[in-house]
């Protein structure tokens, strides 16, 4: 399996696709940094957290870096996974690989692992670049807690990306045509990213509770909530609060443990979603017939 991971990684890092994705990500970090540059002076620093505001501050017209990441991570996941299996079939390399003395699952495991490693490297690079430039810009070093919060945020990015990659790999196992498999993944992404939260949920939900439950079926919502709790320590709950309740809340940040406690369900659900996607593709792939024609 290590051989396959190595080859896939080599493929990813020499491919034009990865180059373009890296450019996109760099562009997003630049935009996010600019947003922080514009907005960070207006930030309330009474919470004691300065550094992580780099990631969550919006500019006058530019959204914050976390918003960019929320949009780009699914795209990267899909771009890395949509042709994982079906390309091997369409180029005729699958039967050649499978006739070598390896277990069949090491093909799909290797591809998934290589994709996650690529994604993790990309996102780690982004966060580090932004941190570095940001540090230079604001001159306030991150506290230990901020570093931990950022790291957990990084982990949740990778899990979120793994879900989208798992979904894309699932489509690549089921659908033989490259273009259709890409479109199918993108359709799911559009559905959850836009239609689901903006149109369907508000239309269907009768109560606030139901609204929240429905929203949380979407991986995007889960990721947004995880981001918020980790990077905005002053947020104390996820979801809607009555204005009466808000007035009783002391406006100070939550300790790390409490923030973690808030997002724990979100994180585990995302892990579960990613695992389900991967498991289904695994099973389908293992049972797929290598047909003569």
């Amino acid at each position, binding site marked *: 399996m290590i*051989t*396959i991971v190595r*080859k896939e990684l080599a*493929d990813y890092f*020499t*491919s034009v696709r990865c180059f373009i994705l890296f450019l996109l990500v760099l562009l997003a970090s630049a935009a996010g940094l600019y947003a922080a540059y514009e907005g960070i002076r207006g930030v309330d620093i009474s919470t004691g957290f300065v550094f992580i505001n780099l990631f969550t501050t919006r500019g006058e017209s530019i959204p914050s870096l976390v918003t960019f990441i929320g949009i780009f991570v699914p795209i990267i996941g899909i771009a890395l996974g949509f042709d994982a299996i079906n390309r091997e079939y369409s*180029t*005729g*390399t*699958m*039967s*050649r*690989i*499978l*006739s*070598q*003395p*390896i*277990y069949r699952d090491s093909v799909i495991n290797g591809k998934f692992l290589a994709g996650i490693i690529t994604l993790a490297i990309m996102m780690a690079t982004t966060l580090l670049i932004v941190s570095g430039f940001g540090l230079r810009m604001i001159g306030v070093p991150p506290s230990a807690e901020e570093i931990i919060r950022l790291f957990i945020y990084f982990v949740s990015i990778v899990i979120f990306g793994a879900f989208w990659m798992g979904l894309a790999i699932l489509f690549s196992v089921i659908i033989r045509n490259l273009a259709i498999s890409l479109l199918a993944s993108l359709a799911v992404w559009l559905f959850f990213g836009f239609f689901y939260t903006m149109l369907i949920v508000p239309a269907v939900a009768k109560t606030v509770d139901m609204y929240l439950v429905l929203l949380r079926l979407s991986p995007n919502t889960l990721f947004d909530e995880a981001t918020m709790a980790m990077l905005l320590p002053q947020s104390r709950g996820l979801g809607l609060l009555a204005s009466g309740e808000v007035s009783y809340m002391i406006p100070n940040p939550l300790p790390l443990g409490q923030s973690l406690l808030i997002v724990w369900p979100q994180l585990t659900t995302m892990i579960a979603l990613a695992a389900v996607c991967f498991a289904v593709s695994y099973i389908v792939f293992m049972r797929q*017939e*290598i*047909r*003569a*024609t």
Partner: protein
Amino acid sequence: MDKKIVLETQDLTKRYDGNTVVDHLNLHVAENEVFGLLGPNGAGKTTTILMLLGLTEPASGSARIFGFNSTREPLKVKSLTGYLPERLGFYDGLTARQNLRFIARLNNMGNDEANQQIDQVLEAVGLTKVADTAVGKFSRGMKQRLGIADVLVKEPRLAILDEPTAGLDPEGINQILDLITGLPKMGTTVVMCSHRLYEVQRICHSIAILAAGKLVVEGALDTLGREALAGGRYRIEVETADSSPQLVEIIGKIKGVKSVEVEGNFLHVTTDSDLRAAISKAVVDNGVALTQVKMQEFSLDDIYKKYFKEG
């Protein structure tokens, strides 16, 4: 003919959506021979191969390669067997050498061993010059040759080649066929599928013909040829300066000769065994000038046609 059987199938059967594609197939391939698997398109050749390699599960029956069950011990089978698929594909972005190295690594070969082996097989298929060119730039024929290299790089004891000469020019075909002919001497048994009968006739020792998933005939090529054309007998063609009735009579009396037909200066002799020497001697002893004696060749075409007329 007590050769070791390296590949054996027992009532191997495969069904797709209710259609029986391979039907109770019993094949036997002896060690160090070139075995030809023939049959029209859709006869189940490729499906059979996929089952042999354990890539597809048979509905019933079993296949054994070097004594290992293909379905239950596919890794052992696949480490001994090289497979050249009909639709051959490589990673276009990688060079020939990189493609082969990937396969060598999947076979747990060490770096030094792999490099040495890769150089050797590239040399054998004549691709040394383009070893470091991306495969995407290769012509169809070069890819096909790389495919053969790809099979040989793992030093298989059995090579299964599905249409090894497809898409090659005549010179390329000759090279590949020569290469395949040399394999048994290096300890590799070959099973090949092909539609080109003359190729099969040139290099195969034994053949099996499949039709609609069933085995039509299996056996050594020369035996099959005699059976197809002369009911299992030999046919010898004798050309003399003067084929007099006397001569016909004398030849007819040689032990083992079944019949003699005259056609101009030609005598068609049907015999039980190879009697060319005895016939020539008889002709010369009778003072008749002998122009030529030859065994009639059986073309695989004839065999093929015969069985498909019957079938």
